[in-house]
């Protein structure tokens, strides 16, 4: 359908639209008009992504005089693929109705590991080894060597791409990673470098958060982006964590040992170079006198170095004299590693601020703050000068330099915590020195400063007023939308007892009780026999899941479950889990039906959707907890309190670490945000339906339950608050029967429309959206 929002014609690829999508677009357009940032919360299942994409692309089509670029950030690669699939659908629609004018270039960008088509390189095991294998074939010195020596292997895809030069462009269209690979294979061009090159010309770029937030990556990939861009962070409820992770480093014994090995190897290399090509080291010295702004004159394949935190003007300063010469720099690194080694050798927990830490490095190891700050770039300049391609061997020394640069750059917002062992396992010595960032606004600040509009959106952003404080920005629009449902398509239940009336809980003193384990098992056995297609179960931890599945196996419960459905399980191996998920979907598709066992804090809970028949029922066994006594968390809370006046209680509610349970025994806290996330992914549209069972007696208490998101709470009826297994079974049967009936999709029978046709939208446009909907 096609409709107007003020002067913008919006092309929306469906015949109908949800009212919340419409208002979402109206708000989003206001933010774009104001060239400001915005914060939008809208529950899952309302088609947020497609609303966002169609408004922004339509906006770009309407304002041809000042074209905007869309930078869409997702948390994971598979979410990126989903976004691109929706974009493809939208793009086809727009091209059909508008013709060639609507054509655009949209690409998904990922690492070499995910884009490489060179069979020898892409077979490498992990990201770092793929990167290194690629450099071995494409580094500028390797290629110049190959020009003289035909036996020197190079990458044909890169060579072809390089030969095509300006001719190597992607035609308009929407490219997923697979599309990019296919295109690269067909043309014989390297898809990774082609995509990176095309980023500056693309209308839409989709990539993961880190490409903007992590300075190590952002400096390479995102520095060319124009100011007139709209940046979207989707599923952004965890964005603060991504920000602080990007600026945190930890040093362990293994790191230091590796770093010492790395230093020795670099030393050998320097000696070798002195013999054969001393001029090169001298040239580097001269370059460093002039400043670090060296990236400009590097070829594309070498530009893998970027500063983690340095503002641009520092780059033009001269590198301090005491680390300009390669040997001197190595001495500094040796002293630094030695110092850290001594620091790490402690038997009590220590906490320090960066300022005092830097001061003590200066007095004990004789390294000043400025030298620390330049470590990262100095190291990379050196590695480049020494023509080192196997960078994956040098990760340890890179970590040390990362650490040095961060600690030398930031005087506030960080702390250094040294712990001799993990508090949960005090018998195993594992000392670690952690530089942890507390201030999420540090990493995201350049993004807010640089781009015209930044949109932060998610299904759950509550409390919504906390985010501007945490991220330190001023949104022009900050709205939270409710979902209007045509029928009660979500059925949450709180199960407190098994069919034998014994309470169930994962509370520490009850979790290993055989009665609880049996009752949980019986619940599932009953449910698999009545719920069609897919059921997802979440457990509080891997170890708990492992234990409970083993005891179900021994008591025969697992066998009963398998009479009805196949069982797939998330393990700590990502590859195995992915295959299990893929098979789970196949089993749901073919009608065999399956159960997926997963963990509340695991990777699956974080980003996989169980919509439609992939998740007719979600069972949350127990209340997920987080260990809140961790030193890092405590330090962060303290910082937030002192700097932003965010009360601990506020943040903990927000971060969903609610209510300290049973302090005497375990110091375990609840994490309801996790619970909400697990069950929040069952609904894909208003036609979809699903049930959720919160199986723990603690959910019946109001203070726990009230932390669940509003859209679940609004469907939680009082009658469903304290159920036993047989009652839940009855409710589930009734619910499924009700959902099987046809219904009026537009919701016109209930008085308020939940689905708008073209006609309705036009009317809305005339009258103003507000009065009809709210």
């Amino acid at each position: 359908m096609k409709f107007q929002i003020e002067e913008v014609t919006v092309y929306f690829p469906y015949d109908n639209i949800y009212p919340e999508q419409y208002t979402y677009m109206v708000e989003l357009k206001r933010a774009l008009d104001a060239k400001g940032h915005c914060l939008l919360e809208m529950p899952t299942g309302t088609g947020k992504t497609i609303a966002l994409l169609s408004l922004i692309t339509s906006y770009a089509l309407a304002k041809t005089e000042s074209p905007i670029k869309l930078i869409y950030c997702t948390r994971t690669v598979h979410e990126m693929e989903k976004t691109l699939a929706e974009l493809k659908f939208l793009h086809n629609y727009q091209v059909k109705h508008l013709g060639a004018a609507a054509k655009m270039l949209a690409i998904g960008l990922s690492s070499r590991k995910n884009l490489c088509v060179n069979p020898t390189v892409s077979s490498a095991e992990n990201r770092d080894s793929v990167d290194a294998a690629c450099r071995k074939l494409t580094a500028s010195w390797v290629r110049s060597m190959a020009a003289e020596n035909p036996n020197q292997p190079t990458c044909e895809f890169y060579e072809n791409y390089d030969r095509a030069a300006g001719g190597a462009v992607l035609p308009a269209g929407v490219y997923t990673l697979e599309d990019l690979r296919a295109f690269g294979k067909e043309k014989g061009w390297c898809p990774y470098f082609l995509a990176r090159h095309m980023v500056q010309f693309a209308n839409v770029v989709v990539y993961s958060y880190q490409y903007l937030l992590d300075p190590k990556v952002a400096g390479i990939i995102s520095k060319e982006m124009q100011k007139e861009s709209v940046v979207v962070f989707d599923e952004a409820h965890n964005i603060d964590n991504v920000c602080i992770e990007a600026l945190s480093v930890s040093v362990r014994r293994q790191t230091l040992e590796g770093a010492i090995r790395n230093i020795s190897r670099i030393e050998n290399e320097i000696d070798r170079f002195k013999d054969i090509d001393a001029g090169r080291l001298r040239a580097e010295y001269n370059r460093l006198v002039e400043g670090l702004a060296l990236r400009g004159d590097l070829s594309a394949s070498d530009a893998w170095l970027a500063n983690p935190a340095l503002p641009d003007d520092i780059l033009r300063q001269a590198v301090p004299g005491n680390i300009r010469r390669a040997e001197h720099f190595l001495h500094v690194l040796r002293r630094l590693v030695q110092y850290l080694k001594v620091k790490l050798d402690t038997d009590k927990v220590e906490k320090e601020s960066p300022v005092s830490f830097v001061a003590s490095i200066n007095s004990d190891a004789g390294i000043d703050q400025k030298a620390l700050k330049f470590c990262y770039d100095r190291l990379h300049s050196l590695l480049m000068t020494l023509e080192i391609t196997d960078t994956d061997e040098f990760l340890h020394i890179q970590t040390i330099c990362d650490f040095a640069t961060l600690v030398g750059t930031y005087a506030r917002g960080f702390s250094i915590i040294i712990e001799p062992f993990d508090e949960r396992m005090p018998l195993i010595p594992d000392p670690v020195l952690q530089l942890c960032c507390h201030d999420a606004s540090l990493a995201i600040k350049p993004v807010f400063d640089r781009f015209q509009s930044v949109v932060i959106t998610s299904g759950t952003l509550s409390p919504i007023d906390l985010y501007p404080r945490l991220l330190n920005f001023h949104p022009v629009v900050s709205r939270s939308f409710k979902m209007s449902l045509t029928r009660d398509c979500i059925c949450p239940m709180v199960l407190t007892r098994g069919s034998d009336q014994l309470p169930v809980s994962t509370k520490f003193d009850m979790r290993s009780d055989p009665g609880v384990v049996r009752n949980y098992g019986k619940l599932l056995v009953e449910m698999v026999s009545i719920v069609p297609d897919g059921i997802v179960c979440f457990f509080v931890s891997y170890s708990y899941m492992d234990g409970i599945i083993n005891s179900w196996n021994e008591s025969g419960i697992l066998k009963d479950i398998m009479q009805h459905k196949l069982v797939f399980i998330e393990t700590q191996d990502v590859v195995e889990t992915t295959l299990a998920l893929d098979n789970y979907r196949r089993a749901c598709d073919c009608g065999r039906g399956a159960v997926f066992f997963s963990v509340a804090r695991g990777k699956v809970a974080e980003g996989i959707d169980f919509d439609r028949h992939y998740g007719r029922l979600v069972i949350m066994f127990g209340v997920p907890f987080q260990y809140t006594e961790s030193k890092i968390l405590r330090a962060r809370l303290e910082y937030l309190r002192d700097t932003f006046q965010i009360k601990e209680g506020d943040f903990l509610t927000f971060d969903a670490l609610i209510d300290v349970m049973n302090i005497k025994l375990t110091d375990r806290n609840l994490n309801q945000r996790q619970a909400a996330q697990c069950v929040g992914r069952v609904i894909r549209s208003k036609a979809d339906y699903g049930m959720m069972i919160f199986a723990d007696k603690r959910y019946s208490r109001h203070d726990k339950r009230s932390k669940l998101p509003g859209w679940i709470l609004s469907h939680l009826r009082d009658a469903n608050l304290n159920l036993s297994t047989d009652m839940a079974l009855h409710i589930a049967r009734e619910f499924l029967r009700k959902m099987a009936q046809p219904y009026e999709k537009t919701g016109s029978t209930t008085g308020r429309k939940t689905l708008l046709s073209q006609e309705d939208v036009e009317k809305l446009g005339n009258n103003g959206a507000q009065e009809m909907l709210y």
Partner: protein
Amino acid sequence: MSSGQVTKRVKYKTSVKDAGTPGRLSLVKERLVFRPNNPNSASKLDMQFKYITNHRYTKEGSNKAPMLNLTSNQGASYIFEFESYEDLHICRDFVGCANLMKFGHKGVAELLHRQQKLQILELIRKFIQNNPAEMICSSVQGCCKTIDYVLHSELQKLHQQFVGGGVLTEAEFWATRKKLLEKDANRKAKQRGGLKSSVLAESKPFIDGRTNRVTFNLTPEIVREIFSEKPAVHRAYLNFVPSKMADKDFWTKYCRAEYLQRSKNIAAAIAEAAEDEELAIFLKPDDILANETRRKIRRVDPTLDMETDQGDDYSHLPDHGIFRDGSKEVAESGNELYQRTLLQDLNRHAAVVLQGTPIDEEQLKDTQTVAEALERSKQERSTASKDDESSADQERLKGISQAMTIDDLRGSNDHHLAPLWIKVLSVLTHNISSTKYNLGKKPGESLLDSLPTSVRDELLHHHISIEELMKHFWSSYPITNKYLNTKVTKLKDEMSKMDSQLQVTSLLLNSLSVRLVQALEAAMQHYDAEQQKRASKAREKPNGYS
């Protein structure tokens, strides 16, 4: 086979006990020919199929050799012993089909009435499937058509009446019969029984309690499961048995390894594996599986591929990000080489079940056969063209992008094929069918039988067509768009026509037609009431539907 004939090595016998004459049996269009290897032998045979009245064959799985026994119309029997069951089946199907042909169209129709339609259909399908197209002679095709026609003649009548009459469109008519079409299409592929969901091999070892003896029970079914879930064990079996060790020793070793595995005594497992390299094979991680995993992960649905995340995730470089804030679980370390967990086994098992079994029930005899059958099917699968796989993937990807769309925002172009409103219709059809059923059965009420055939047929036809109409009528409610509205109007016209026709027939005072009239009236009443409601609503709300 492509030359339109089948030739197999057989032994020709006149009785079961006869040693038999080795030679070749050729089956051509209308005759069968046996030529002995020794050209001087007297036992030549050349006869037409039409003289054969009956054929019998040995069942697979019995102890007897694969034999086919043909009986001629003179009562003589000809026995052929084949080299394998496979050969036997091909020839049996050929003979069976040829047998069918001689009946001609009339004969087939007759057979159909003798309730043998399914068997015949099955026979012909098999024949068509096993043989290239040019071999299927015209008469077989003729037979098929006849069968289809007889089976579906009722359908044809309905089709003509409603689609021809413009009451329903082609799409509407077939929409309610989608299943029928699908079933027929699916039957082309030979269907195998699926695997059981539950883990068989996981069944507990039997411990007698007095001694330290532990007993594992192995059936061919379990063996199949073990082989397909653990390809390395399968490979080891093929390599070792019987050249290196006996079947029994192999399994003893396997069970020993399983026992060690399950007792979770890793130290003992490592110690034993160090001494016994065959045992170590069972304890080592499965390299064939690992390769398969690597291959499969490339073809996984990209919207849930978490492995690509790992390849993209810059914050999970070693020592980057937050290391110890309590949010991550402490991983247990262990000797990975000998640690296979229950969770992995369960995932593997479910994957195998989902994939299905490549071997038939009949092949579940002993370990050796199972192992060989699995191997054969594996080879077949690997030689099967890879294009097939990639096209299936393409198909799947297309499905994914389709799944990304939001269903209820889509237009209403297929709303008229909405599912039935089951509650109403099932009550109604139950009523009608029970009437029909009871009419014939109850002794005092055999009204139908007393009627002349022409009237009875007419009446039954009325019944079927009204049922069809009702199906469409009730599935159109609630009326959500213009399309359904016009459809209901058309249906209503047709119903009133039908009603007047029935009125005439009902003069015959048939209780069946009374019921039918009742059904029609109920529907019409509903229509009127609804129409009135709509009209009044439309007056209130100008944007409502009319």
